[in-house]
């Protein structure tokens, strides 16, 4: 855990480089525009992952529910069966 924390702190240092521009001729855009790029990048990257996580979770819940229902059906059928026999 400590090591993980240390790694995260080290990694977060990567977020603070100053003018390390790879492109020498591109004028730096306004800070607003840079933030917009970062925010939309985060949005577009996270969105499909969140959607799939949500869908997977929902399907899982539905599956468990259906299984419970099936078990209930089965036990009811078994009960009826034992009554008749």
């Amino acid at each position, binding site marked *: 855990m400590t090591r993980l924390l240390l790694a995260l702190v080290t990694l977060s240092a990567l977020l603070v480089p100053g003018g390390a521009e790879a492109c020498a001729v591109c004028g730096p855009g306004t800070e607003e525009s840079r933030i917009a790029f970062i925010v939309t990048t985060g*949005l577009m990257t996270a969105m499909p992952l969140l959607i799939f996580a949500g869908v997977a979770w929902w*399907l899982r819940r539905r599956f468990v529910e*259906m299984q419970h229902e099936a078990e209930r059906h089965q036990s009811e059928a078994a009960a009826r069966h034992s009554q008749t026999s």
Partner: protein
Amino acid sequence: MRQRTLRPAPAPASVAQRRQQLLPNGVLGMLIFVITEAMLFAGMISGFLIVKANAPEWPPLGQPRLPAGETAFNTAALLASGASLFFANRAYKVWPNRARLPLLAALALGAVFVVFQGIEWVALIREGLTLTSSTHGAFFYLIVGTHALHAVAALVALGWSAWLLSQRRLRPGTLQAVSLFWYFVVGVWPILYFQVYLA
């Protein structure tokens, strides 16, 4: 998800449903399609946010302001339509015929939304907001227009479901799939409304 433990399926004739499904085919297919559509709108909104952040002034000077107030009324109609469809779905499960009224109400409210949006567009074009007048206009027509196309397509599908229902041929999977699409169209609108009209 080992489904073999579930109750045995009825003996299939040749190609019967061979396994119990978590979701009917139509709903699963529509769900995947809706995810694609959600990403389409995410792309458009991303572009809009970036161009908006680049602009010194938003909306650009000399461009008409969008009628946020009138559109709030439209938004309410659309949301009501979604709610109405929700009740139609619930009624359908109990007694299919009872779904008819809420389904038609959803259809009518959706049509109100589309028609009033159209009227709004005509007014805006008269005021000088066009695709080429600025990036503001371009994004407005792109995003709202894409949504309108979806709304029209969904309304056609809803109308078709209503017709099938009156013929007693509506299958639950079809209604669920069409509803899913309409919920998406309804659900994405408040986000678009907030981003394009308000923020």
